[in-house]
């Protein structure tokens, strides 16, 4: 198992003692801290690809981190598309990366 990227003790802010909860990403069971942004929980688990571009299929990740660029959209079961950088992690969340989609207008069908 890879080393956690988290800062558990901060020299100024002290102990980072949030509750550890479970969630899944693309079916894989992971742990994160309750209430932290989904993108942060995934980054701490070494996951940087949050979405495949709907047209090209190329990888997309955290970019602006403040909700403006809309690049980090993931699918959360029961919530639809959300921005990973803004959406707080909750116990049992089932998260899927954003996926490449067919284009009904141009007729491109591969996905």
């Amino acid at each position, binding site marked *: 198992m890879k080393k956690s990227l988290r800062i558990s003790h901060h020299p100024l802010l002290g102990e980072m003692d949030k509750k550890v909860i479970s969630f899944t990403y693309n079916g894989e069971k992971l742990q994160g801290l309750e209430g932290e942004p989904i993108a942060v929980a995934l980054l701490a688990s070494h996951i940087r690809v949050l979405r495949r571009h709907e047209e090209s299929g190329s990888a997309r990740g955290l970019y602006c981190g403040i909700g403006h660029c809309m690049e980090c959209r993931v699918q959360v079961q029961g919530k639809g598309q959300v921005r990973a950088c803004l959406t707080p992690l909750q116990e049992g969340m089932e998260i899927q990366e954003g996926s490449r989609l*067919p284009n009904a*207008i141009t007729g491109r069908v591969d996905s």
Partner: protein
Amino acid sequence: MTTESADVVIIGGGIIGMATAYYLAKLGSDVVVVEKGEIAGGTSSKCDGNILAIDKEPGFDSQMSLESQKLVTQLVAELDEEFEYRAPGSILVCESDEEMEAAQTWVNRQKEAGLPFRMLDRGEIRSEWKHMAGDIHGGLECATDSTVNPVLFTYSLAVTAQRLGARLKTHTWVTGIRLDESGAVAGVETSNGLIRTKHVVNAAGVWSKPIAQMVGIEIPVEPRKGHILVSSRTESIGTRKVMEFSYLMSKFGKERKVDRLTEQYGVALVFEPTASQNFLIGSSREFVGFDMKINVEVIRCIARRAIRFFPVMKDIPVLRSYCGLRPWTPDHLPIVSPVEEVPGFYIAAGHEGDGISLAAITGKVMSECIMGQETTISIEPLHYKRFQKEDGKK
């Protein structure tokens, strides 16, 4: 400061100005377009992109759209650049039996005028639109309605006009219209110097009123603000335009059965899928002068209306929203007309939300009018004098 000359000076580098420039250049005219900002920098980039007959009054209005649709089909082959043209038709959907009856009347009148309209029953709506709310009663279709990317369309007209010799002057604004001793047009004074010409086309859209005032002519063109939402890329909800039937009521200022805010902001569903895997959602209509700030309350109201027709949209994020000013006229028809009192002065403005729809036919007839040819359609109903007669009655 320089002095140059041209056969025709067009004021305004939006869709109307560029269509006029293209058709004039094609007829061999030496054209200059004067634009105060960027090409398509005003209303033409703050709209959606439809060539619709479905929302036009049956008769002259819808015939004019049909002519425009035919011309746009030709432009696909004539212009130098692609502009995401498709002609999948468009539909209006009804919320009640009362609206279905009104829709039937609308369809009958359009068919009498020779347009390809037909009613759609509940089953036909359901089979095409799996995400549409289940209580929709039915609707109607106009089979020839088409769609374009309005910014690409404007630029395509612009680059093709340029290839044919038209000169485009952006970031150049008009400071005055010079007349000769007889009162005829002699030139256009701009921030970059004088352009000598005998013909000026006022295609300044929402800014056409102050341009007309430069030659002492009053035209009742007022800015009417509209908001549009842009969705994120998502699984396809549908591939052609959908509007609610009561959009027509909103457009023509008739009474609707909707809540206070929907009524106040003139909100009616307009769904327009794009080639970018997303869709645009409109619409609103407000008279608030030249205010271009986004009103979040209007955005919320438009979103609520869209979710009423497409419940799935509650889980689809809005990427951004924008608003634009539509050049409104009191009778919802544009002004496409020579101004007899000021020989050489022409007006092509006041298309409200129909600028993209009517640009091709407007540019075509304006070019024919200036070149002294017979016009493709009669422009008598579009003469600016119709408003002066109304004033005379008061």
